[in-house]
Structure formats: structure tokens, C-alpha cells
């Protein structure tokens, strides 16, 4: 295997980290002792830099060793500056079940230097303002790609200037002409944009620009991985450290090459420890627009969206899109959120009483588990039917109904306690509660412990409205 062994998760033990820590148990990092800190480090729950004593000169050697030990398989690179600067890459693993993916795929929406000033501003603002509330998370877009379609340095410079005045989002400057790229960089010399791109023909000039402006640069070699890694190697030798790889994105019959290239690069990085492959990957779903012709815009946006989703699954760290409609961006941004969640945690919501509509003293009382997906499904069925009801969310430690009953996480005791804690007794004048059909087994016990009469409801929450009409009488 490679001599540059990266932090494979399984082989790294807290002891390996502990040995290199100052062992002062100073608690400055917020942990009880250095061993606890080491465990959190290995689980990637805290950053090594929160150990302040490590910065003392006498610990410099160990600090460097730790940094090397914890180096991710895919280098982490920062694009942009300030509060909206975006980290990309930093991946530790190939498969989601191995460990939580770090740094959700950054999504950039483009503008061109041939758009009118007002169109640039409105597109950039739309990108900046994109926001969707989804299970306690705000989904956002991350970057603006400025494309030079004019081949005119002044126009490109003006467009970059306009974008940088309009938003704090990081930029990707897209032109293969180094002179034009430089004009763009001069318009935003300290913005640390991602430079697109160094190719086998312009690499030297682009490398100089990347060094001069201290910005990360994309190495681009469409569908040629030999050229791509050669380019990365050359740029590294030139002194460029922050490199993003663009193996090319191709729609339609080019999809197998696209998916293969991304997959091979990520496998070589994570399983083979290959440094030249261990760089963030750029995907360009907007290549779908090359097929525009007479095709309806919506159909192109549709294709662009599914290519983007494929690349969210298959290892892209940055994506450039052109379509900026809500309907086409929403599935990809929700998918990105899904794929980048911690695969170890059962998703749980806060237990307690939820109130729907305007219930009165005769309204039904139901209970469910605090497994997020169960809860949101039940809540959606109640809400979408505009029911007036109380819903008690029982703490089942994130277990669903049937597995909760089987695993003793949803017990009569917990339900009885939840009824009591909810205070619903003071809100209704009956003492009847509707149980999920799948929890019918514990209904007798609940009655004994709580003093409430239990009505066994439907097995699927979509039947709640019908059930209430037929079976609920206060």
C-alpha cells in the first residue's frame, strides 16, 4: 500500500492520538481529560486545534505528527473569505456507512459576463437568498460561478466586480484564458475565488496566478485521468497546494465515463491513499445546456438536476449549475442534506406535546414515537388534513413504533409518563388516548398505569383522518 497512509478510520485508535497530546488534563478544550479529548478527536467530533497547549513550541513536533495522522483522505480546501467562505473536500471515507461525510457538496450557480448588470445582480441575489427550511435545517446555495463567454477581459473583470459587490458568497472564476482570468482576479484580488481552470496547455500561467493571488485552482482534463493526475502532480511541483480535480462531466452517453471517473478517483484516494487523487472533485451538471438546441428549458433543467443528484451521491465536492429554479434545485439540495447526515444516529425529535389546529376540550389525543421519520409522517398526516388534535410525542430514544415496542423503548411506563408530563389532562375533559395500531400490544398496560382509556388506532397514520371520523367520539 501507499507509504502516505492517511487516517483510515478503523486503524486510528484514541491511544494513537493520546500519545501525542500534552497529557496535561487541563480541560481547556472542554473535555474532562486528554483521553476523552483523544476519543472525540478520533470520532471527528472536535478539532485538534481546540487543544491550546499543543501550540506551545515544545509540542510543535507532536502537533505536526497529529496533523499528519489526522489528515483526511481528501484534502480540505477553503474557497472564498469571510463568514461565507466554504470548505470543500476533507472526506475521510468512500462509503457513507463508514463515517459521516464531511463538508456537504458546495453548489454554485453561474452568471456570465455577457449578461446585463441587472441580470447578474438578480441571479446572484437569487442564489444568495435561496433558502428552504427542512427538518430544522436551512438549505442554502454556496457559490457563484462567473463564466467568461465574451472572451473579453474587460467584460469579465466588470462581471467579477459586480458579483463581488453583490454577494459575500465565494466565486468560481471560469475561463481557460489566463489573461482573462487575471483580469477577473484583479477585480477581486483578495476574494480567494476558485480558479477554473488549469489545463494541460495553460497550466503554467494558471499556476502563477494561483500563487500570486493565493487562490485554489481547478485542474481540468476532460475524461483523461492520466492527464488529470499529471496536471495535479505538476501543479504541486510548481508549489500550488490547493487543487480541485475536474475529470469532466458528460450528460447522456457520457454518464458512464462521468460516474466511473468520480468513483475511481475517490476510491484511489480513500482506499489507496493516493495523494494525487485525494483532492476535492468538481462536477459540472450545467454541461446539460450544451444540448439545448430546441429542447425546452425545463427539460434541460430536469436533466441538469438529476446529473447533480447523481454527483452528490457519487463524490462531487463542488457542483456548478445553471438552472436556478426552486423546483429543480430542491430535490438536489434535500438529497445533499440527507446524504451528509450522520449515518449512526437514529434521527430523533424532541418529545412532548404538539398541538395541531385549534383543538378544544373534546379534541382527540394521540401518541407516537419521537423517531423523526415516524413523527414527521404522523404530523404531516394530521396537518395536511387540517385536523384539530393533540399529539403526545413519547421519548422512544429515536425508535419507531414496532421496533420500539419490541425493543422496550416504547413502553407503557414511558407512555404513561409522557401523558402526565404533557399536561394534556388540563386541556381536554375526556381521558381517552389513541394509540398507533402497531403499539396495540401495550394498550392494556397503558390503561392500568395511566388511568386513561386507550383506543387502538390505525397501523398507518394516513388513516388517522378516516379513523377520527368513524371512531372518535369525545
Amino acid at each position: 500500500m501507499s507509504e502516505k497512509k492517511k487516517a483510515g478510520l478503523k486503524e486510528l485508535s484514541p491511544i494513537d492520538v493520546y500519545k501525542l497530546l500534552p497529557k496535561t488534563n487541563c480541560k481547556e478544550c472542554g473535555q474532562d481529560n486528554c483521553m476523552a479529548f483523544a476519543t472525540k478527536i478520533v470520532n471527528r467530533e472536535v478539532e485538534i486545534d481546540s487543544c491550546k497547549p499543543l501550540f506551545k513550541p515544545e509540542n510543535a513536533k507532536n502537533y505536526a505528527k497529529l496533523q499528519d495522522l489526522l489528515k483526511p483522505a481528501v484534502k480540505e480546501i477553503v474557497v472564498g473569505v469571510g463568514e461565507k467562505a466554504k470548505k470543500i473536500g476533507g472526506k475521510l471515507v468512500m462509503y457513507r456507512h463508514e463515517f459521516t461525510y464531511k463538508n456537504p457538496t458546495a453548489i454554485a450557480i453561474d452568471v456570465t459576463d455577457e449578461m446585463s448588470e441587472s441580470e447578474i445582480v438578480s441571479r446572484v441575489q437569487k442564489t444568495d437568498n435561496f433558502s428552504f427550511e427542512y427538518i430544522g435545517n436551512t438549505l442554502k446555495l454556496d457559490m457563484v460561478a462567473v463564466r467568461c463567454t465574451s472572451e473579453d477581459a474587460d467584460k469579465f473583470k466588470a462581471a467579477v466586480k459586480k458579483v463581488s459587490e453583490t454577494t459575500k458568497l465565494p466565486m468560481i472564476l471560469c475561463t481557460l484564458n489566463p489573461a482573462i482570468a487575471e483580469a477577473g482576479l484583479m477585480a477581486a484580488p483578495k476574494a480567494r475565488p476558485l480558479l477554473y481552470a488549469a489545463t494541460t496547455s495553460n497550466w503554467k500561467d494558471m499556476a502563477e496566478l494561483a500563487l500570486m493571488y493565493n487562490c485554489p485552482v481547478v485542474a481540468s482534463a476532460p475524461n483523461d485521468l492520466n492527464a488529470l493526475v499529471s496536471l495535479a502532480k505538476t501543479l504541486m511541483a510548481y508549489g500550488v497546494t490547493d487543487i480541485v480535480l475536474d475529470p469532466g462531466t458528460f450528460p447522456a452517453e457520457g454518464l458512464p465515463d462521468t460516474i466511473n471517473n468520480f468513483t475511481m478517483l475517490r476510491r484511489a484516494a480513500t482506499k489507496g491513499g493516493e495523494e494525487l487523487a485525494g483532492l476535492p472533485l468538481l462536477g459540472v451538471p450545467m454541461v446539460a445546456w450544451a444540448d439545448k438546441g430546441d429542447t425546452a428549458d425545463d427539460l434541460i433543467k430536469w436533466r441538469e438536476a438529476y446529473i447533480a443528484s447523481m454527483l452528490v451521491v457519487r463524490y462531487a465536492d463542488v457542483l456548478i449549475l445553471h438552472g436556478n429554479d426552486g423546483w429543480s434545485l430542491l430535490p438536489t439540495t434535500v438529497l445533499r442534506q440527507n446524504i451528509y447526515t450522520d449515518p449512526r444516529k437514529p434521527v430523533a425529535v424532541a418529545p412532548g406535546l404538539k398541538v395541531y389546529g385549534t383543538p378544544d376540550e373534546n379534541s382527540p389525543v394521540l401518541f407516537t414515537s419521537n423517531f423523526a421519520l415516524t413523527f414527521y409522517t404522523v404530523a404531516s398526516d394530521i396537518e395536511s388534513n387540517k385536523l384539530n388534535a393533540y399529539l403526545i410525542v413519547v421519548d422512544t430514544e429515536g425508535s419507531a413504533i414496532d421496533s420500539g415496542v419490541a425493543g422496550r423503548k416504547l413502553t407503557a411506563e414511558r407512555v404513561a409518563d409522557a401523558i402526565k408530563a404533557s399536561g394534556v389532562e388540563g386541556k381536554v375533559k375526556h381521558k381517552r388516548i389513541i394509540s398507533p395500531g402497531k403499539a396495540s400490544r401495550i394498550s392494556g398496560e397503558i390503561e392500568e398505569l395511566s388511568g386513561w382509556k386507550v383506543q387502538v388506532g390505525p397501523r398507518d397514520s394516513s388513516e388517522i383522518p378516516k379513523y377520527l371520523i368513524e371512531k372518535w367520539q369525545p
Partner: protein
Amino acid sequence: MISTTHHNTDKKKDAEGLQLSEDLLAALAKFQTIELEDFQLDAKELEIIFEAGAAGQIMPKLKLPPAVTGGKPLNMIQTTFLPPIETYPNKITEVKLGATKSEGGTRGRSLIIGGEVSPAFYTFERPMPHKPVITLDVFDMEVPLSKAVKMHVKDVVGDPAAWAKLAVEKFDADMVTMHLISVDPLLKDATPKDACKTIEKVLQAVDVPLVIGGCGDPVKDTAVFEEVCAQFPGERFLISSVTRDMDVEKCAKFIKKAGHAILSFTPMDLNLARELNRRLYDYVAREDIVMDLTTAALGYGLDYAFTNMERARMGGLMGDSELAHPMSSGTTNAWAAREAWLKMGAEWEPRELRGPLWEVTTAITLLLAGVDLFMMMHPAAVKTLKDVTNFLTSGKKADLSKYANWVSIKA
């Protein structure tokens, strides 16, 4: 320059025939009932990691760049990328669906799913042995459908034979899933014999292989499946599904006797999937089992479904035979997500596009996890998934001349 053409005016020249008309609507109440089975992922389970490469394969490696000894390189430093190709100790079982006359049935052709020897679409390693298959939902009675879906099938609802014909002839379905909803004791409580009459009509109307779906009541489904097996031996249906709360032994025996295949359904838990498959092995061959590990909608647990399926496939390839079965996905569950059908703010419209794209996104995510059989609903989603699987298995190369110069696209 950016086209500002509104989608409504674009529809007419829609080159691929995606008829995405405006009055598409939503609320697939039926799919809210098929929807999310309860499931969970145990944190401890994740420690069982199937990792490609664990079989002792040695990754080819690249030479690292030489240390820079002052001076910048004047020319490109040439190196090569060695494709990280691996082999896996196990193969996913092949399952045949449908039977032609010579095979003992009446279908125009049979289909084979499974047989993978690499993870999904790792075609740099080896080609996919069989294309994933799409089966379209047909219901035997009127069910609440999203308008987005209903507009495509409104003329055939209530006529399963006509619906099946439409699915095959117009929507290009590889297979049809006959959902025998009317046998549900809480709905029409139709008899097993009634169900068989429906199947007979569908068999006459189309010649593709069939999936036979029950109503979800373990006792009634057992009775219906038993009658179906007695009436239609040799057709090599996929019986959907056998679950842990059914009389597994009884079902397995009559399904085996009739020569059908079993869809082994479990609620998002690989240990339960293994357990059910083990119980089935006592009565049927491995080649008779397809597994359904539960599909949750994009935004509503798709991450669990994806990871579960990806782990199952990696496990199967790495030697866990109990998981080395082709996988089926109830992708129609995508419509359980409210974002697929709900009228939202103007910036998220039209939902007539958002809805089917939700189904596409759910499908494509699971395609990349290794699903072999997709149970789907919306014709536009079906068409897209078909296009994508055709592209991915085409063996063609990327057209650089057309796409490499994307920076200058005048979109």
C-alpha cells in the same frame, strides 16, 4: 444569453415527449398508506463495515511527485492513473422473472435481474450483467392518486387490463405490478377468486412479466397468494411480498410449488432481512428470492434506505450470501414526501415538475446503491430512469467535442 422562456410555452416543443402538463396535481393518498414502514438504524450495526478491498486486493498506486528541489517545473510531469480495479469473492444471485411459453408460462419474454459481480455501475471494473428493470404500478380499484400521476392514467383507473396495457405500450414498462388492493378486508374485501379474475385479464392484456402485490394484511394476503399460485402456476410472478408477520413456511411452500419468485420484505433492518431470507432458504432456492429493504422518500429517510442498500450490496459482494440477492425498491414511496405533491410558495413551483423529479431523484439515488427492480409511478420519472440506465449501460464514451468547452456555453 439566458433564455427567459417560461416553462408553459416550452411544453409544446418538448423533444423527448415528456408531457408535463400544467394541471398535474398531487396528494397520493394511496402512497401515504404504502409509505414508510417503521425502521431504524442501530448505531452498533454500522460497525459491521463491508469494505471493498478487505478481500486482500492491493490497490495500484501512483508515484508521488518528486520533492521540489528549487525551481518550478518547465514541462508537465507525466504520470499515470491506474484504475483501482478490485474483485469480490461473491456474486449477486440472478433471479428470473416471468416465463415464456417454452418456460412454462405465457409471457412474451422473461427478464433476469441481479448477477452483479461489482458494485452498481462500477463499469470501469466490469459491465453490469443485466439492466435494472422498471415495473409500473397498476391498481385493481380506484385509489387516491396525485393529480400529477392521475392525469396520465385517468382513463384507465378501474380497468386494470387497460391500465396495464397503457403502462406497457405507452409508458414502456418492463413489467407491471398488479396491486390487489381490493382484497383488503377494510376496503372491498374482494375474494381470492376475484383477485385471480383480475390477474387473468391482465395476463391477457399484456405479455410482460408481472409482480403480484397484496393489500398488506398478512392473513388475507396469504389466502390470496395461495389462490393465485394455484390458479397460475408457471408464470414466474414476483409475489410481493412475504413478510415476517406472515406464515412464512406456508407461503414459501405454495409459491415454490407454483414456480414463482418471492419478494422478501423487511423494514429497513439488514439483520431482519438476513433472518427472513434464512427462513425462506428452508423451502425455496436462493434464485427465487428478491429482497425489498424498504424505500423511504427523498427527504424522509432516503439516507437510511440508501445506506442500507449500499451496505447490503457491498456485504453481498464481499461474501454475505444472505444479502446477495437482487434488490427491489418501492420507489413510488417518493410521493409520500409532501414536497413531491404539496403546493408550496411560488418559488418552488410548478409542483407538476417537482413531484416527478422527486421520484426520479429517489430512484437515481437508489440506482447508485444497487437496486435492480424499481416499482414506479409517474411516466416522466419512468422515462428518465430508463434513459439513465440505458446511458449507464451503453458502453459508449463521452463526447468531448460537445461538452468539454462548457465554460463558453451561451445558455
